[in-house]
């Protein structure tokens, strides 16, 4: 797994756990809103990383061949 995809998976797990917490526990509306502000970027990044296309690189860190 590439470091990018690994970071995406981790972000998705943090985001989902965070959302579960703010959906169930907080009594204050302000905490719910600020929790949403905190965990939405993790979800956005986690989902986005799942959508990125398969790499054209043969090996990690190498640029794809673009002609002479």
């Amino acid at each position, binding site marked *: 797994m590439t470091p990018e995809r690994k970071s995406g998976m981790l972000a998705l797990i943090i985001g989902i756990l965070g959302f579960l917490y703010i959906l169930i526990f907080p009594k204050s509306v302000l905490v719910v*809103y600020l929790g949403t502000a905190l965990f*939405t970027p993790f979800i956005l990044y986690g989902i986005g990383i799942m959508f*990125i296309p398969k790499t054209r690189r043969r090996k990690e860190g190498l640029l794809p061949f673009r002609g002479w």
Partner: protein
Amino acid sequence: MELYNLKYVMDALAYSLYAFLVGGLLLGLHRKIVARIQGRPGPPILQYILHTLKFYFKEITFPITAGNPLYLLIALMSITVWMSALYLGVVFNTSLLILMGLYVLQKIVEHGCGLSSGSPYGKLGGVRSVFSAAAEVPLFTVMGIIYLLTKSLIIEDIIRYQEIHGPIIFQLPFAAFAFFVLLLSKAPNSPFAIVKDKSIVSGYLTEHFGILESLIMIADGIAWFVLLWIFLAVFIGPLVVSDPLMTLLGMVVLTSLISLICALTPLLTPNHSVMIQILISALALVDLLHRIFMG
């Protein structure tokens, strides 16, 4: 297990989506107006939102020089900062001081973005973002002037004050001007936009591409909405912000005015940009001291 807070989370996400769409369209309008004034057709108004979507699905790799996890987390922090500003300012009408603190956090985002990338262009952009903190000095004095007049820094109280006494912009024109310069310094292609100067490629954003750039663009869209809303709420008041359509109209007018200035002025050098902003803050300070000592 009951999800008591589901409604609030949905509301919060809906507010953010609305702010991003409106902010994104206004930034698109900004580019269109600048282009038309310069005699170019310019991109469609939707371009900012289309770019955000396009970058969201682009492949990324972490640059070999990038300092992770800061390189990644700083893009996420950018959205957190402006979503928090949206909720605390626009939704809950809390204190201007908290918004000021969040605006300072934005400087940390710019600085962190530049320095974590490892690119010399990014680093220059990050360093310039520290210079451009001079734009926040007038904000301190503006808050002092507003406090002297309204005896509160809570946005709700300031709006209520204007219900009785009329828009503050007529009583504190210089404070409104100083705040307007802050808005101008945040606009793309503005004379004060030294952090994204093309001579340093894309400034602090140079090495943040693909989905990370998309996330920062989402944050910038929300930031534009929030900053325009604060200006309208603090200086014009319920006349505009009590009606969503009037708020939109006010934002379009402000964006058009800023676009006009951006199209007609060259980018200042960093030292000139800082000098002008310090000059404005000095004048705002004189205004504040005059109000303190002369009543």
